[in-house]
């Protein structure tokens, strides 16, 4: 079980195994959305699937759901939950570790936000990015206008396209 969901009682978790759907050659999307429609806000959807459902993350984000993903063997367990507001900053490394030279990653998710919010969130997070820190931004598009800004502020970015509507932008401090 994923760390931040440890305290969720079992009865609050709705399991949904979409493997039979996939085996039958159907798109599990509608089933997922239907199941979601019958759930309460404090419940967690536990999706069992044979690939990482990346496009679904964006759809769920628009519906206000965050996710945690766990891979065991050839299976993916994805937990969707209504949590903090979108684009909450969560640092992978715990407190007190910042003094060590361990590389750490700060992640923010700006998918679905109206411009200029994505840029504002990113620039506001920049002061936390030092030599050992990478800022990983989950974005719905390649943020072309941001690059000059980063250059100007002494940062650099590398963007990786994961899928249509999903880009990972990694921002690091220069030099």
């Amino acid at each position, binding site marked *: 079980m994923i760390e931040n969901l440890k305290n969720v009682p079992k009865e609050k978790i709705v399991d949904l195994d979409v493997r039979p759907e996939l085996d039958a050659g159907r798109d599990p999307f509608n089933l997922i959305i239907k199941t979601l429609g019958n759930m309460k806000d404090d419940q967690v959807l536990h999706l069992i699937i044979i690939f990482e459902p990346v*496009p679904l993350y*964006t*759809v769920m984000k*628009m519906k206000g759901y965050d996710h945690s993903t766990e891979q065991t063997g050839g299976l993916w367990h994805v937990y969707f939950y209504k949590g903090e507001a979108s684009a909450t900053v969560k640092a992978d490394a715990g407190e007190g570790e910042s003094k060590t030279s361990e*590389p750490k*990653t700060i992640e923010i998710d700006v998918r*679905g936000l*109206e*411009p*200029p919010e994505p*840029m*504002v969130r990113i*620039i*506001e997070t*920049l*002061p936390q990015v030092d*030599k*050992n820190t*990478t800022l990983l931004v989950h974005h*719905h*598009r*390649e943020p*072309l*206008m941001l*690059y*000059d*800004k980063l*250059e*100007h502020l002494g940062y*650099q*970015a*590398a*963007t*990786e396209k994961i*899928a*249509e*509507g999903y880009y*990972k932008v*990694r921002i*690091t401090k220069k030099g």
Partner: protein
Amino acid sequence: MSAPFQGSITTPYTPPFKVVRQYFIIATITFIFLNGLMLMSSRYISGFHFQPRLLSFAHMAVLGWATMIIRGAMTQLIPVILETSLYSVRLAKWGLWLYLAAVITIVSHFWFFAIKGGGMASAAGMAFLAVIIFVINVGLTMRKVKSINITIAHIIAAIVYLTVVAAIGLLLGINLSIPFIKGDHLHYLGLHATIGFVGWFSMIIMGVSYKLLPMFTLSYTYKTWPGWTAFGLINLGVLGIVVEFLTNRPLYSSVLIVTGMFMFSYQIILIMKGRMRKALDVGLRHAVFAYGYIPVAALLGGLITLSNINPEIKQRVILIYGFTVLFGCITLLIIGMMYKIVPFLVWFHKYSDKVGKEKVPMLKEMFSERIGNLQFWLLNIGVPDVMAGLFLQNQTVVAIGITIIFISSLLFGYNMFTVFTRK
């Protein structure tokens, strides 16, 4: 440093806003001026289309407003669309002034129908040169593109057509000064207008729409075959029109074009259906209505080219068609896209450096959405009103419609002024 990771290291390539802003401001002023002028001389908006005032209005709209905005927007959007930097900022900068001089000269020569002497010919020559500068700038930027997508295919077609339109325009301009074309001047004018509307404008509008509409509405999962089909049909149709022109044989090419326009509408429906950002703001509402006018214009175009309606009615339909394309399709789409693009650009250049240091305005605070909405509805009352007035040949109805559109253009100008001058 962190571990190496996949992905491209990016280089800066935002074009200077100063240049883009000049295009936008000049075009917006032209738009308001055009509406004011049309209001004061609305009695000329009737009858046969080859008339000095109508030709002047039409060129002010297509050159001074629509193409002006598109040139500016392309300068800005090319990095976004092509994911590479503009070949030359200097060409964009100096091209503007040459182009502006050409537009003013052409429009005023039409207005006074000053065809004696070489004025009209040299005006058309200047416009041709200014177009070539733009085409070279976009073309050389394209060279850096590695793979073709639907937007890039449309842009390539669009700039080819633009060159052809400007070349025919140059021939027509020379012909007005020193007649040399054997055969009918109006025959060539028809080709000039058709390639301008169906070639240049539709290709650029569709290509840019395929990029911007999904971006603004967050739509990713739609199929693109209708868009490619539309692309094929419309280009085949334009080619057919050229063949018809050269051989003087009716080939019913407009059937392909009309079908292509409907395929485009279907593609837009698919994009809109798959969108994740459901709410439509004032900019997108403009765009949606503009897309709605496209099949209407396509049907009118089909009516002109394919049916045997009596010549007097046909003449009215030609005017309605031209007006619908310019004010329904093109103007609504431009205004909508400007509401989406301009506030963000201004925000980016004025406030993005202040993020995290002081309070910066939200995009919604950059202009009044209420005025934008009012302007939107006025425009959508004015346009059908003028269309009806042209059909009924009722000067009063036309004048009322143009008054409403003029008020709408003032409100739009006010909103843009607010955005550009925001402290």
